[in-house]
């Protein structure tokens, strides 16, 4: 059956890769009988048993540390960190260990490890709402993935599991298509748009470092990631009626980053708006803006605009959270400013 939600797509990817390769093992908090906080691992304990689907103590550093050790000793672990905010507890193992071991050891070994984790703000306040992908873009040795559709999620997770490097695989909570237990928010394909493409049941792998044009247009380039792809689609539809034709580039992987596709689009449109849910300073958008300034400055007809979270912890009150998370109206306003 095709996967209409990202949760189903991820589960298919895990199932297919676990069937194919016994070295693929899962570990994380509450991924067994509880099925994972967002139900990605539903049914996998029954299908593959406790040896391969391991509930862990609430010890993020030891979870990632053990996964690193297991990867060095021949396994291909896939870690689930319940919220990406909790990766902070494992930063040494991610950034000093997994990311650097290959270089430090002169290429004697690689660390085939995937760390899956949800990102995004959904009413859970400052420590469960961040999007920390830029931190890991700043640590060479890691790869960073952030899909926006079930189709991309499945093909990219399968590639991540096959990759011999440590991969941070971020999943946006609002795109999962499933409600977390006790959670109030849910999303489904029906609430999104036509680019939220289902994943077919057949096997396929999507290459890293290849962006996807989620929409073609000639006036403004939007580079958007994760949930922001869909908000950008909404903005593009609204502005279409005003005659503004928007192109949307979804990098899909932030490391490696498909610079060529971004530059090609900017050369065509001459205008660039970058929409990302991480904070503004030293963020995903900062890096993309810098690359464009370096390689395509003279193609630009307007200043580059970043639509990101302002430099603040995410506040709890719904009206405050809404204010700081990039919304369709923020994107529209940025586009109007580069068009004026």
């Amino acid at each position: 059956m095709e996967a209409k939600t990202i949760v189903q797509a991820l589960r298919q990817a895990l199932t297919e890769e676990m069937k194919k390769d016994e070295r693929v093992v899962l570990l994380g908090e509450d991924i067994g009988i509880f099925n994972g906080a967002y139900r990605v691992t539903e049914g996998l304990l029954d299908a593959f048993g406790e040896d391969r689907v391991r509930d862990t103590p609430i010890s993020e550093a030891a979870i990632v540390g053990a996964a690193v050790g297991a990867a060095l000793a021949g396994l291909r672990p896939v870690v689930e960190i319940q919220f990406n905010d909790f990766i902070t507890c494992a930063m040494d193992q991610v950034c000093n260990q997994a990311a650097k071991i290959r270089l430090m050891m002169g290429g004697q070994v690689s660390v085939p490890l995937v760390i899956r984790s949800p990102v995004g703000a959904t009413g859970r306040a400052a420590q469960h709402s961040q999007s920390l992908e830029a931190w890991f873009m700043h640590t060479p040795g890691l790869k960073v993935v952030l899909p926006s559709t079930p189709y991309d999620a499945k093909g990219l997770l399968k590639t991540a599991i096959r990759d011999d490097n440590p991969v941070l695989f971020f999943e946006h909570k609002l795109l999962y298509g499933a409600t977390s237990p006790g959670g109030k928010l849910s999303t489904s394909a029906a609430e999104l748009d036509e680019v939220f493409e289902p994943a077919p049941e057949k096997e396929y792998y999507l290459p890293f470092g290849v962006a996807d044009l989620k929409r073609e247009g000639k006036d403004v380039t939007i580079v958007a990631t994760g949930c922001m792809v869909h908000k950008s689609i909404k903005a593009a539809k609204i502005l279409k009626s005003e005659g503004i034709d928007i192109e949307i580039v979804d990098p899909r992987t932030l490391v490696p980053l498909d610079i060529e596709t971004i530059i090609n689009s900017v050369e065509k449109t001459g205008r660039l708006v970058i929409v990302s849910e991480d904070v503004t300073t030293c963020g995903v958008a900062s890096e993309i803006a810098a690359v464009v300034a370096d390689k395509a400055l003279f193609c630009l007809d307007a200043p580059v605009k970043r639509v990101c979270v302002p430099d603040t912890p995410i506040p709890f009150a719904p009206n405050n959270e809404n204010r700081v998370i990039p919304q369709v109206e923020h994107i529209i306003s940025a586009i109007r400013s580069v068009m004026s």
Partner: protein
Amino acid sequence: MAQNLNEDTLLEMYEKMLLIRKFEEKLYFLFLTRVMPGSMHQCNGQEACAVGVCANLVKNDYITSTHRGHGHCLAKGADVKAVMAEMFGKKTGLCKGMGGSMHIADFSVGMLGANGIVAAGIPQAAGAAWACRYLKNDHIAVAFFGDGAANEGVFHEGLNLAAVWKLPVVFVCENNLYGLSTHYRKVTAVENIAARAAAYNMPGTIVDGMDVLAVYETAREAVARARNGGGPTLLECKTYRYMGHSRFEKPSYRTQEEVEEWKQKDPIPAFAGRLKEEFMVSKEAITAIERKVDEEIENAVKYAEAGPDPEPDDYKQYIYA
């Protein structure tokens, strides 16, 4: 004690301890003469811990190590020439010159790496042990770390995980009394770090880390327990480092008398004496080992010095697989 040991094993342990001692003495000289780049952390005085434990391991067993990792690497069987070349940052080094002293590793003998971050190897050893059991390959993992590491969070997380998963791993704490300058009793709530094993429902054992046979015997039990499915052990070796924490350090935090007192318990001459008296090893055999080790180190230095530097862009090929 030690009846199970044949003369070859005994002599091999002596040779390994001597190799580590002389290797580091040579490094010290090379650093002082500034032939060698970087910094280093020496384990002079602690050799019996690495050798006594590793004598119980086979090639494909894993170890994780610390910033003070030369001894563990050599005890696990890494090639002396390639270790020395890595100290020089040469392309012929074990890590192609990319890691240096603090990241020395040799995956061909299960040495998963020295580590610049205190205690980081502890959960990694647990993970490697998990892989061994999962792959049913009968191997085990050993984590070496110091007294300072026992106050890091991953020590506690790693021991707990290993215990609840009953993993084939041995945690070896080399308690050399000081975390850099700080005496462990100033910063550690227990007298014996081995006592912390109780909190993780695993055996905790204390051994004289200056006595290689005592370490060997104690580690033998822990290794057997791990290999037979009995789960992890915390083994605390009471030991001492003669040198400073790292290079160019003023020994302001301890007295020369204390250092001299520990040197009276030096594991190497003590073991040479026992080999002669208890195990009837000839003086000639001992001397032959000493000559062999000297020669091996001289050859290693020659090999290292003659080796090429990496190309300036070599690092690029190692960032990603």
